[in-house]
């Protein structure tokens, strides 16, 4: 089965006055139809940059230096703005961070979704679009009667659902959700996550979830990629990532979240601070904070390689592997 989305060696850099920021440095992953994937990392790790690159919603000072973004077999990197406009919303749609703030306050919510539909599918009439919005509302758990309200009349959870409805409006094959529930209370978050799961299964959509909250990702994604300083440092299915994390950063992350289940355990801290992506160094970027660091970690960038089936890690000293593997640096 051909993957729906295939990112190959994507490099996207920002040019700033202070220097070059390697936001996305040699990123590769694939996503199949109906699959849900999580991108986990802290602020500045590049996860939002990846999604912006896929949608090609980049600011002026950003450039895709090299790499490919194959969506349904076609490479999006050389696409013009006009060609991308046809892909956006209809092929790939996005739920932005703090999306509830991206609803225009002076237009009715329903009208904004209708606008999205009509812009991408000019053959659809106004009535047809309205009907579609109605069924979308039912799908996300909103009352269709409230289509004609203004955003300020909706609660936070309702706005988020409206945004999800908007992202589904043109039947995309892939949705990128960037921190879709971060600004919401935990009970509303639970409802939204369940809705998203239901919708995804029903429409057999692919999803990329971006979040810093590994607990949320554990619930929604079957495959997880951990990002650090612009690179993917580990990728595997979610059970492996949680039960046998290999990259020291992942190991640290797993033990640094307090949980309300099980026994109360001591939290492990990862010392130091997340790195500056300006003028990135030519060695492992996690070296300054890594408890397992050795000399070779400071000399070169560790190769991103498969250490077990379907488990990729970029580290000279991967942990917790079924059989101990030492990754040879001089490949």
């Amino acid at each position, binding site marked *: 089965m051909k993957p729906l989305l295939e990112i190959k060696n994507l490099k996207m850099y920002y040019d700033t006055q202070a220097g070059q920021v390697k936001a996305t440095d040699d990123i590769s992953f694939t996503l199949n139809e109906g699959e849900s994937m999580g991108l986990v990392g*802290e*602020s500045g790790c590049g996860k939002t940059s990846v999604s912006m690159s896929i949608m090609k919603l980049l600011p002026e000072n950003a450039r895709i230096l090299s790499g490919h973004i194959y969506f349904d077999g076609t490479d999006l990197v050389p696409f013009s703005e006009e060609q991308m406009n046809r892909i956006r919303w209809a092929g790939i749609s996005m739920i932005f961070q703090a999306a509830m703030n991206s609803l225009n306050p002076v237009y009715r919510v329903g009208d904004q979704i209708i606008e999205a539909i009509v812009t991408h599918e000019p053959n659809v009439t106004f009535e047809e679009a309205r009907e579609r919005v109605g069924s979308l509302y039912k799908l996300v758990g909103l009352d269709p009667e409230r289509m004609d309200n203004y955003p300020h009349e909706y*609660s936070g*959870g*309702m706005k988020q659902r409206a945004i999800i409805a908007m992202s589904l409006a043109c039947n995309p094959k892939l949705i990128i959700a960037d921190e879709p529930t971060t600004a919401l*209370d*935990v*009970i*509303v*978050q*639970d*409802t939204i*996550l*369940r809705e998203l799961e239901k919708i995804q299964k029903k429409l057999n959509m692919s999803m990329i979830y971006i979040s*810093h*909250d*590994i*607990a*949320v990702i*554990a*619930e929604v994604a079957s495959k997880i990629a951990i990002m650090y300083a612009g690179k993917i440092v580990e990728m595997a299915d*979610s*059970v492996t990532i*949680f039960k046998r994390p290999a990259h020291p950063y992942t190991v*640290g*992350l*797993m033990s*640094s*979240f*307090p*949980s*309300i*289940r099980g026994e*109360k355990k001591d*939290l*492990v*801290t*990862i*010392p130091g*601070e*997340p790195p500056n992506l300006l003028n990135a160094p030519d060695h492992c970027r996690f070296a300054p*904070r890594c408890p397992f660091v050795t000399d070779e970690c400071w000399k070169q960038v560790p190769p991103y390689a498969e250490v077990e089936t379907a488990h990729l890690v970029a580290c000279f000293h991967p942990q917790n592997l079924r059989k101990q593997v030492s990754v040879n640096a001089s490949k």
Partner: protein
Amino acid sequence: MPVNDRETVIKVENLDKFFPMKKSVFSVSKHFLHAVDKVNFDIKRGQVLSLVGESGCGKTTTGKTLLKLYEPTNGSITFLNRDVTHLNSAEDRKWFHSRTQMIFQDPFESLNPRKTIFDIVSEPMNIQNFGSLRKREVMVMDILKRVGISPPDAFLWRYPHELSGGQRQRVAIARSLVMKPEFVVADEPTSMLDVSIRTQVMKLMMDLIKEMNMSFLYITHDLAVARYMADEISVMYLGKIVEHAGSEELIKNPLHPYTKALISAVPVPDPEFRRTSVNIKGGIGKPIDPLPRCRFYERCPFAMEICTQKDPELIDVGNDHQVACFLYEKR
């Protein structure tokens, strides 16, 4: 010393804070927002109490009212055996404010961008006219070192924008602890920090609480963090405390339907764990002129007739566990 034998540092009885809903400067308000309604708790020396709840539940307002950022509408606050409900003289105010402090949520906005780190951390001493300039410099360097800002003299004359989020929050903690207060309120101090920094800051606070034997009120929406940081947890809903118990007891044995919903809504960082579904409906309203009945009535799956007739009081169900719910009231 066992907790119950220690002295009570702060005691809150039937605390109310109502906000008038005024239409203009000249109108008389007819409606009141009951942000904090008959709240009772006490914190002993060296103890950490966590106020947990979703947005709009009144936890932040409670914390601010305790520290006199708001004047209580009714009720009493007793601090170190003195009634501090209304501080009438300048000496009373000085006495109170030199022994209490607050740590804020936003590391970017809680530091004045035009002041140096030295000015910021020494501000409590400056306001209280404490110590000579030399002495203040020494104490500031001391506390900066203690919170992990090292070497302190390199940071004394920097400005907030030169520091990272984690460093800024450490500076905010340093500021609040420089005069060695006896009671500190922390309002979601880690929710705006990166994940790997969050744990560092939480651990730092735990160490400092033990070292300085402080009484701490930790306000958060995250039950997992509350479990880690606090000895006791009070769950708030629409201005009222609906349940109170020791942290482990509350997590293992929740009684109030809202607490149960909160716990089951928290995502678990384990992909193989299936959560029980959260079975409450609806959203959070605003407690404006609330009727004398249970505020959770509309969303409660166990609602009964009596819940609309009276407002449930906190009753003791043994094991230092209190809950405000008619399900547990013995007839």
